[in-house]
């Protein structure tokens, strides 16, 4: 243990050298710790993002296949029939049988069926109007109609075909409201009564927005009548089983169309939505969403599910793209942080090795004396290692106190940069991606906006903290730097002969 004592004495005696080495080692360890904490925080945020996003798979019509099939048919028939619109395509609704078969697969946490349509108002209920002046709205609508645009707020202007007809109310047919996007992400919540559940299948039960309920003086248990979107003479009595509140607001498009106003969204069972759409839609849905209990099983799940459906007509979309977009800045930060750790560690080993080498050259005489009085080379190297270890220990304490702050500053700067890049890329993609996809398919726009808001939330919540794990990791890196730098520089000691040192 004599060499430990010598190391202590030497460290204490050579204060200048010790302080210099502490400063250098601290700087190295601070950067290593910053890298470790940033990486840890980014990985933690990624994990959290994964949990918050879950893994959702959507079964819906394969629009691309439908469109190309339609285009092919259009090309084939163009020679004989010039009236076929090359830009139109027919959508095949998803058979309920297929959606149910997929729902029976393993690893499904929850699932939902979606079937959306619209409905017209009757005397028993008035939709929430987005415009203050009915007359001006009507005039504008009329003007827009003349220009070929769909008009809003006018009950008489329903002119769309079955399943897509414009009405006063947007009907969201679901299996359960709890699994509907707006409810699962907290945008909407039941404030009175209950939501739609699987027990409401084949019933006329509905859940309406509280503004709509207040405006029409309706409450849970009341009934009102809505009309078929394509034939207003066909009406349906519906019963209110729940009232929900929604924090979503109408956009400029919604100002012109009542059915786009979030307050005019009525939730009901998918079976009743199908009834409104017509007999052709019985036993079908627009789409189905499946939330998996383990996101890791997504690929396997999709593989199994594809065997159960006609992939030419239907597609299974995973939320992987949204998830990837969400974690991209975090991945970049984590990757950069990992590079920081590796580069700083290598640089640290090189810098400290050079310093120790120079120090050993200066201490050749001391080494010679120790060897001449019978000290072994291993113990001489051990003394240098202990000296470096003591310096590392002090540096570790300094780095532990300051590394977190450096990590916060560097991490935040990196994150801001990555988020800005990601946001600009994302907005550029959105602009290229076209306009709103409409509410009819119950997905596109809603999911995008949720993903966007969640991304911002997750990225902003990147929290760089210092845990025992990081300190232990830092200690490990410090120990490795310490050991390697001493070993590299000790190659010279092994070659030193006491006689040559002492007689030179």
């Amino acid at each position, binding site marked *: 243990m004599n060499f430990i004592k010598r190391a202590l004495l030497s460290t204490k*005696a*050579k204060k200048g050298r010790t302080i210099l080495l502490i400063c250098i080692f601290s700087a190295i360890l601070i950067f290593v710790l910053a890298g470790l904490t940033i990486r840890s925080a980014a990985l933690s945020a990624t994990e959290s993002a994964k949990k918050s996003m879950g893994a959702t798979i959507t079964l819906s019509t394969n629009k691309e296949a439908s469109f190309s099939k339609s285009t092919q048919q259009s090309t084939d028939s163009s020679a004989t029939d010039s009236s076929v619109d090359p830009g139109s395509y027919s959508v095949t609704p998803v058979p309920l049988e297929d959606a149910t078969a997929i729902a029976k697969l393993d690893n499904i946490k929850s699932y939902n069926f979606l079937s959306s349509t619209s409905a017209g108002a009757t005397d028993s209920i008035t939709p929430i109007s987005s415009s203050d002046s009915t007359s001006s709205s009507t005039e504008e609508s009329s003007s827009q109609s003349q220009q070929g645009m769909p008009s809003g707020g006018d009950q008489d202007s329903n002119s769309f075909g079955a399943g897509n007809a414009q009405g006063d109310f947007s009907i969201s047919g679901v299996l359960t409201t709890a699994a509907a996007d707006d409810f699962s992400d907290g945008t909407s919540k039941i404030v009175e009564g209950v939501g739609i559940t699987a027990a409401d299948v084949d019933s006329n039960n509905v859940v309406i927005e509280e503004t709509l309920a207040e405006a029409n003086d309706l409450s849970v248990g009341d009934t009102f009548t809505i009309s078929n979107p394509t034939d207003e003479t066909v009406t349906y009595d519906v019963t209110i089983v729940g009232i929900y509140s929604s924090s979503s607001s109408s956009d400029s498009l919604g100002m012109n169309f009542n059915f786009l106003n979030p307050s005019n969204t009525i939730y009901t069972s998918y079976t009743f939505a199908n009834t409104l759409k017509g007999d052709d839609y019985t036993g079908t849905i627009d789409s189905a969403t499946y939330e998996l209990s383990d996101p890791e099983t997504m690929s396997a799940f999709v593989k199994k599910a594809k065997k159960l459906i006609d992939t030419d007509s239907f597609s299974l979309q995973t939320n992987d793209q949204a998830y990837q977009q969400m974690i991209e800045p975090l991945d970049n930060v984590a990757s950069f942080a990992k590079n920081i750790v590796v580069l700083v560690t290598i640089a640290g080993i090189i810098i400290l090795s050079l310093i120790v080498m120079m120090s050993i050259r200066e201490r050749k005489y001391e080494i010679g*004396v120790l060897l*001449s*009085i*019978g000290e072994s080379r291993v113990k001489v190297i051990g003394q240098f290692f202990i000296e470096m270890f003591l310096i590392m220990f002090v540096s570790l304490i300094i780095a532990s106190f300051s590394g977190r702050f450096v990590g916060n500053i560097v991490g935040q700067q990196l994150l801001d940069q990555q988020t800005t890049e990601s946001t600009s890329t994302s907005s550029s993609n959105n602009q290229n991606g076209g306009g709103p996809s409409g509410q009819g398919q119950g997905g596109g726009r809603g999911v995008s906006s949720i993903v966007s808001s969640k991304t911002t939330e997750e990225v902003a919540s990147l929290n760089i903290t210092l845990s025992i794990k990081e300190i232990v990791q830092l200690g490990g890196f410090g120990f490795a730097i310490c050991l390697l730098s001493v070993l590299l520089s000790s190659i010279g000691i092994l070659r030193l*002969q006491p*006689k040559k040192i002492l*007689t030179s």
Partner: protein
Amino acid sequence: MLSVKDVGYWYENKDNSLYENVNLSFEPGKMYAILGSSGSGKTTFLSLIAGLDKPKEGTILYNDKEINKIGLTNYRKKYVSIVFQSYNLLPYMTATQNITTAMEISGSIQPTKKEYATKLLDSVGIDNELAQKKVTKLSGGQQQRVAIIRAMCCDHDLIVADEPTGNLDEKTSKDIVQFFEKIAHTENKCIIIVTHEKEVADACDHIFELKHHEFQVIK
């Protein structure tokens, strides 16, 4: 105690050897001087018997064991102490610490090393106050005395000294030589001093002179 048998040493080739077929014996309780002019190879000879270097030919036996077989590091650690002309003390340590360090390295069985070191230092005129100072704060004579005590304290039977008085004034040199005599005669140590000073050599029991690549017995 220490036998040098047929030892030869050269740096580049045998034709320019420093010496060949050297046969000498050293006994405990006696002080030996090795005289020679500068560059004659006396310090190299001391390196060989101190285990700092290996002879090119021949063997060196310590208590009838080849020092190569003992292992040079082990030999230096357990059996031989060296006093250098330039003291070779550890500069970041006090006089006491230099001595206790050597004791610990050699595996000294002294139970109270610090007290023992202080007592030995006091016996050569290094009082407690000086003993607690960094060796760099001591004079040349004081440092040499510390170096001698460091060699003594390890309880090694063989002490080799390379020009121990080379850097000292006449009076201090005399004191040091007397001190060596005392150690050799009262503590039954074998002391081999390499020197070019005749006064130092005269104080020794036996004198070998390295001249014309050969050791000659003068006394």
